[in-house]
């Protein structure tokens, strides 16, 4: 049975979005948990790492009991079996298509194209974050460089991803508040989402429209009676 997230958090229900599909991630883990890592293809191992990274980035209260248990089991499995199985797994990342995606994104992209691009970057970052905690020396500097360049591209073009803001905001809402202080390799995955939620101003645009408050700030403003 596919573990389900608790339904008490409807704001985080973005089923159908590859950016935030906890059910699918858990399904991938359930399917592959019992198979020895060396029997999985490189791509399957990569996906497993990406799913774990994204579950690690989710606050426990947003995960079902089953999902939390799966996360722990997969952590244990990787700690025991990782070894050589992680050596080249990151080479299976989907970012070979990044240059083509950026060209598409600058030329009337569909929402699906934007989502695919962002999800591919997120998967790779999440997988790298898991490997960083297990076997950091197996992360090739070229991949770190590629990821930084991808993040910078999104940083500069955050406005392009405006159609995904709702999904991204709900995904960010699912993350623990102290992620930045607790796991730097996972925290860096937030940069692209922040760039989308609050894109950097471009000096060439005048006048600048002030960025709308996020839903969380809006709620706080409505709640807060006045200055303390």
């Amino acid at each position, binding site marked *: 049975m596919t573990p389900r997230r608790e339904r008490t958090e409807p704001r985080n229900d973005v089923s159908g979005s590859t950016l935030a599909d906890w059910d699918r991630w858990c399904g991938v883990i359930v399917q592959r948990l019992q198979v020895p890592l060396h029997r999985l293809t490189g791509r399957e191992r990569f996906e497993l790492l990406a799913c774990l990274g994204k579950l690690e980035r989710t606050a426990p209260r947003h995960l079902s009991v089953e999902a939390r248990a799966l996360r722990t089991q997969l952590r244990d499995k990787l700690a025991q079996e990782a070894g050589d199985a992680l050596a080249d797994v990151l080479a299976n990342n989907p970012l070979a298509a990044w240059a083509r995606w950026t060209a598409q994104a600058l030329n009337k992209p569909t929402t699906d194209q934007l989502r695919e691009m962002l999800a591919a970057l997120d998967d790779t970052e999440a997988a790298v974050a898991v490997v960083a905690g297990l076997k950091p020396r197996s992360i090739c500097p070229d991949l770190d460089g590629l990821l930084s360049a991808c993040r910078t591209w999104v940083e500069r073009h955050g406005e392009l991803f405006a159609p995904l803001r709702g999904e991204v905001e709900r995904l960010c809402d699912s993350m623990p508040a102290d992620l930045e202080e607790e796991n*730097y390799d996972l925290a*860096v995955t937030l940069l692209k989402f922040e760039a989308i939620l609050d894109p950097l*101003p471009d000096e060439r645009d005048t006048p600048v429209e002030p960025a709308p408050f996020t839903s969380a700030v809006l*709620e*706080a403003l409505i709640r807060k009676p006045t200055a303390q």
Partner: protein
Amino acid sequence: MTEATRPTNGEIDAAADRLAQGGLSATEAEELWHHLEATVVLPMIQRLEEELDCDTLGAAAEAKLRGRLQRYRMAKGRFPRWLERTLVNLARDEKRKVRRRGSFGMDDPDQLADARGEEEPTPSLDEQLGRALTALRQALDELERRPRARQQKTDYHAMLLLELRLATAARLRGHRDALAAAGVTRPEVSAARLAWSEAEQAREIQPGWPKLQSVWEILAEELARTDDLLTDDDVVRLLAPLPGVAAPTAVAWRQWRTRATQAATEFLGDDRFERVVAGWL
């Protein structure tokens, strides 16, 4: 540096961790910092300056990075990733400073942490908002008490008060459903959070104009009706019919706004204005 001497990721993380933990002599700390600077920090700053088109990042990083480095812990991840996040956040600050656009520091944990000291826990959003509002109110009270130049016709303090409410209302756009569900409009939220004293309500932007409160009510009506930004043209058009108002041009209105923020900056100082006021504009 040759391939043979280039440090591995693990060595870089360990060096940053040693520096962050402290307990080194001044010479050791300096040597370690220069090592990190040469191998990781400066190359990343140069790349981000170029790719993010932010030529002030280096100066900002120099002022803040070493202080923030104390927070780095090797057990929590790789130093280059910690550094990347920190530098991108600094670059964002720099870019926003340029355009005076922000969100009163509430989405900038580093800036907040700097302001409150290293050891305090991260405050909740409500606490941050309360503190930001309190700091803003104190600054506005000080601004209100400053002597006004005799020859100055335009009341720049009144302009600033109005500008703060308009900017806050502007940032509440796109949330129409949520506001309706809470039974409030965006000008109501804006006015409630940025409340004016009776004396402030009675100010006149120009001699003979209606009181500031009346000006706000006209604009608030439009803000409640639409979910758009009010441009300078909109404001001038809406205020023109008010009794006593010799309608300014949009250009003049924009100049009053600019002068209002300049006057506040001059009185409060760059740092305090940026920290306390600019984020609301």
